[in-house]
């Protein structure tokens, strides 16, 4: 009798779990399947086709697009894109972490205000914000004219149209996306944990390194991804602030789709980029798990 009851209970639990999974996972996953996986399938299918003479695709199967992608030119561009995006991400982290930390120390009202202030620039158009940097930094722009006027320099500084300007533009574009997740992680840390560490003899620096930092890590990782990913694929900033002299993966993909009208090859590049980013994401998930291993049980 007891066994029958236990089995019935187990079945009920299983049914309930199945129902739960359906309710929660089905809408989102089917949406993603239809609107991302299927288009992804199309793109993957395209990678094996041939470019039509005037554009479009011809149904002639080939692996040539993949071998073309291994060319050193494209690998070089990929590496450079990663370096530039990584630089922007690192800078965002160095600047963003202290800023997020500072915000957590404010009173609740001020926290709200500062967070909204940080998000507000996003509500102006990206193109317009980026152009404003050109107005600011070009050789006849405000910064140079100002510095010359007060006599700090006598020749204008050439600040734009170099990789550094691209890094600046990407940092500017995505810094808020680093600050918000870090803030979110920091603010959930129970202050009692830090106090406990200090009571047990840790110095503030040690408490920070061994309590605060690890607990903030999920936020750091999410923020880093939120900055790195759109930076790598961005094509507007390299064009505007890089003067078209810095080619990143995003420009490459756009050029293949739009200028060369070579959809098969553009598709290969897009898939390469996605694979690379997915790998990064898995690494991030692993790091997350290993550092917080005990907590997650």
């Amino acid at each position: 009798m007891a066994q029958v009851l236990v089995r019935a209970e187990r079945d009920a639990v299983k049914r309930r779990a199945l129902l739960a999974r359906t309710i929660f996972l089905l809408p989102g996953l089917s949406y993603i399947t239809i609107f991302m996986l299927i288009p992804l399938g199309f793109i993957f299918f395209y990678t094996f086709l041939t470019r039509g003479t005037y554009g479009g695709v011809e149904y002639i199967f080939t692996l040539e697009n993949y071998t073309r992608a291994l060319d050193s030119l494209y690998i070089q561009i990929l590496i450079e894109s990663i370096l530039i995006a990584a630089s922007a991400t690192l800078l965002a982290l160095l600047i963003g972490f202290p800023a997020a930390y500072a915000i957590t120390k404010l009173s609740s009202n001020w926290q709200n205000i500062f967070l909204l202030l940080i998000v507000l620039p996003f509500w102006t158009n990206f193109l317009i914000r980026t152009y404003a940097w050109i107005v600011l930094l070009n050789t006849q722009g405000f910064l140079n004219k100002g510095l010359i006027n007060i006599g700090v320099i006598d020749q204008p500084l050439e600040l734009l149209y170099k990789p550094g300007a691209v890094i600046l533009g990407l940092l500017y574009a995505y810094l808020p996306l680093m600050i918000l997740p870090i803030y979110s992680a920091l603010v959930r840390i129970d202050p009692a944990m830090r106090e406990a560490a200090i009571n047990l003899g840790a110095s503030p620096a040690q408490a920070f390194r061994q309590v605060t930092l690890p607990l903030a890590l999920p936020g750091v990782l999410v923020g880093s991804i939120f900055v790195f990913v759109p930076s790598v694929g961005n094509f507007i900033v390299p064009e505007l602030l890089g003067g078209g002299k810095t080619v990143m993966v995003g420009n490459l993909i756009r050029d293949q789709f739009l200028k060369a009208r070579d959809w098969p090859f553009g598709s290969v590049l897009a898939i390469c980029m996605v694979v690379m980013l997915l790998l990064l994401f898995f690494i991030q998930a692993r790091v997350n798990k290993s550092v917080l291993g005990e907590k997650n049980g």
Partner: protein
Amino acid sequence: MGSKLGWLKLPLYGVLLFLYLPIAVLIFMSFNQSDAPFTWSGFSTRWYGELLASPEILIGFKNTLLVAIVATLLAVILGTLLAVGLARYQRSAALEAIALTPAIFPDLALAIGLLTLFTNLNYALGLDSVIISHALFCAAFVTAIVRGRLHQLDSSLEQAAADLGDTTVGTFFRITLPSIKPAVIAGALLSFTLSLDEFVIAFFTNGPSTPTLPIVIYSMVRFGVSPEINALATLVLLTSALIIIIAQRNLKVKDQI
């Protein structure tokens, strides 16, 4: 407010200065006398007048707002459900990766993939196809944020509710949702923000007669960013700031109740 900060004041105010310097520049340039994007030639408010008389900008703005609102609603529902499902009911690294992929997929490739899908389904492009497309990557961001929050909460309350006989749906509404409310709101805010300014996907999945604001701006920028465009950005900024101030007030009152 600031006494606890000490040296942290530097990065905090530094970040604000960094974020708002170009904004100050564009507001300044919106009052430029001539239409030169790079050179200042005197003060004038004429561009604000021209802006308000420009039908395509107003239409673009209306369309953008509509898309952002509906896409956000859709994204919040899909993303929250998915996050809860992944956190509480099905631990799977593969599914998590899939759930977040729309956020990291290169937007141009996604845009073209979606265009191909809609074309093959003979689905007429319009604001609805943009909404569907935006909801896709916005939902991924909502999933990420809510998932992150659920990560830090423990599930004992929900398990207790289940043990006490609550239904799945009931547990969700009574226990889970309230505890993740800040994350859901953050996700909604982020989703709205991202959709508002999104150009690439909107361009490819939109119909020709219903442009969104980024599309209008992108085609106007052919001659550089004119003071009229800066005036537009300034107005949007002011409106957003106003909305935020009003929302702030309301939140304060709510907290006191």
